[in-house]
């Protein structure tokens, strides 16, 4: 192949490399504090789902935080300012991730600490309580009641786990499912768990999501149904224990439980977290997320600030041998 042909080929390759540059939209990559501030604020404005519910004036927030931005800020300073701005949303599904730090909103501080596992293991469960998958459980001491601790919705609940547990407590007067300090996890586990406590298809809540950049651009509400499981079911009294640290999938479970007759919720209001967290990257490569959907109960009540219990009960820290929330649950089952 002679030089003319080789040159022609090279020109073609270079031509298409240039075409590619014309083809791509301009990339917004920058470490500039102003660029990243503007980008994050704008994305929140377009996609966060609870401005109206929480009565947050996001433009006012911008004005306050804009005054802190200048291009001489260090990465750490910028992170702290952006994190503080996100905390204005009062939403534990809101985080800023960088190599230096991860921001969070301390939802548990909205209410008292309402759970102490040591009190339960010392006073309510045998020392050889069972561990089945993510569940820790056994009969409550001196009671015909099953106690099931579910600490996190992370990972999958297996049908075998639920069959074993519910078969074991089939002849009890009631069971207690303790999701206090359960920060959430896989939403699929909500439906897997609750499907064992119903005997017919049940509408449990509605959810909608942002579908445009304007504050009120939402989809229609989509109903969430649960079908009864074909496996072992428990249709007697179920008590669900919650507190301020019951969040996300824990809150969804609590919200759905309000639509199921046989479940009574005892404890403190949950932490909320009824919006799906989603987000993306900033121009400097940090990632962010915040809530982009809303869920409401069957009467269209929005419980993003927390799903209230049916019976309020608080842990009394002056006596670590008694869990008042469990005592109240026992009282409810035995009445």
């Amino acid at each position, binding site marked *: 192949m002679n030089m003319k042909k080789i040159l022609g080929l090279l020109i073609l390759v270079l031509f298409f490399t240039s075409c590619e540059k014309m083809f791509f939209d301009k990339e917004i990559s920058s470490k500039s504090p102003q660029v990243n501030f503007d980008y994050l604020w704008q994305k929140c404005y377009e996609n966060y789902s609870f401005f109206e519910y929480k009565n947050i004036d996001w433009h006012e927030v911008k004005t306050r935080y804009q005054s802190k931005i200048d291009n001489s800020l260090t990465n750490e300073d910028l992170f702290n300012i952006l994190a503080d701005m996100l905390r204005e949303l009062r939403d534990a599904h809101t985080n800023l991730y960088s190599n230096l730090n991860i921001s969070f909103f301390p939802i548990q501080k909205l209410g008292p600490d309402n759970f102490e596992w040591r009190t339960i293991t010392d006073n309510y469960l045998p020392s050889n309580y069972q561990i089945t998958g993510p569940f820790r459980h056994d009969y409550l001491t001196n009671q015909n009641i099953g106690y099931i601790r579910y600490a996190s919705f992370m990972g999958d609940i297996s049908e075998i786990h639920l069959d074993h547990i519910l078969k074991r407590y089939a002849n009890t007067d009631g069971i207690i499912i303790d999701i206090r300090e359960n920060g959430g996890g896989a939403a699929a586990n909500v439906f897997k768990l609750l499907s064992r406590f119903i005997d017919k298809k049940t509408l449990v809540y509605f959810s909608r999501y942002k579908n445009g950049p304007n504050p009120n651009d939402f989809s229609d509400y989509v109903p969430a149904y649960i079908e009864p499981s074909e496996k072992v079911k428990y249709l007697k009294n179920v008590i669900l224990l919650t507190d301020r640290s019951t969040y996300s999938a824990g809150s969804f479970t609590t919200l759905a439980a309000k639509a199921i007759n046989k479940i009574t919720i005892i404890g403190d209001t949950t932490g909320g977290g009824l919006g799906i967290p989603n987000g993306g990257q900033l121009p400097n490569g940090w990632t962010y997320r915040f809530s982009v*959907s809303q869920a409401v109960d069957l009467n269209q009540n929005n419980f993003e600030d927390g799903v209230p219990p049916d019976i309020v009960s608080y842990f009394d820290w002056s006596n670590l041998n008694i869990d008042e929330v469990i005592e109240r649950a026992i009282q409810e089952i035995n009445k």
Partner: protein
Amino acid sequence: MKIEILTLLTLISSFTITHGQNKKRDKKDETKFIDFSFTLGGGNFKDEATSPLKYSGISAGSGIGFLKINDFRESKFDMNYSIGSFKSKMETKRSLINEIEAKYYYLINLNLKNEKWDLKIGGELNNYTDIRVNESLMNNAFGFENFFTLFATSRISRDISRKTEKRFSFLHYSYVFPARKRTLSYTQNLSLYNSTFRNDYIYINHGFIVNENLPFGNYVTSHFSGFRLASQLDYTHYFQNCNAIRISYKWQAMQTAKDPHRFQLASHKIGFSFLFNTK
């Protein structure tokens, strides 16, 4: 959209008429190849739904194709897979991209009545999917886009065969390059119809929160949407046993519509193919 439909119909009609004229001469003189190919290349992508950053990287892949060719027409069915690792300029985790492409093209020779040059036109149906994984994007960790395209295809080829053997001496060694059939081709693909299948505005699967476990629950198909352009430069070297090798430079660029969020991808690949003659 009406102009695109009209153009599409015009192209199909003229193609059908021309093809009808050539049909009788086809089957007997047809040569068939199985094409095994390997590619190595680089590319860029940008997905405004998840990031303002452009990711660049390299990829490697392989493919198999079934080619039929004679003096009057050429058709090929191809399947290709490649995998690549892409990174942005900023300190971000890598995105792993899997590309799966299936295509079928059909070209007819316009018979330029020139010994060296020939020109073919036709069309290509192309289905391209990319699957992206980047854990740092959390609920957006998994990305999926599909492009289905009807291309208008044109290919110009030049016969650069070595008609007689050539002798070459270097120091005390002499080499004989035997006569060989060789071609150089340039193919241009322009999208006439492009559809995209992609997650909608908020880029989540809302279904999992309402107990509807459809994997593409929030995905939307958009017809006559987006754009694709592709081209390929091939050097094909035939052996005496009628097999061949081909070295290719492949370029393509594609993008979805801007609304709700644009996805853009461009790739450059060098391909090495072994064409095994089966007839």
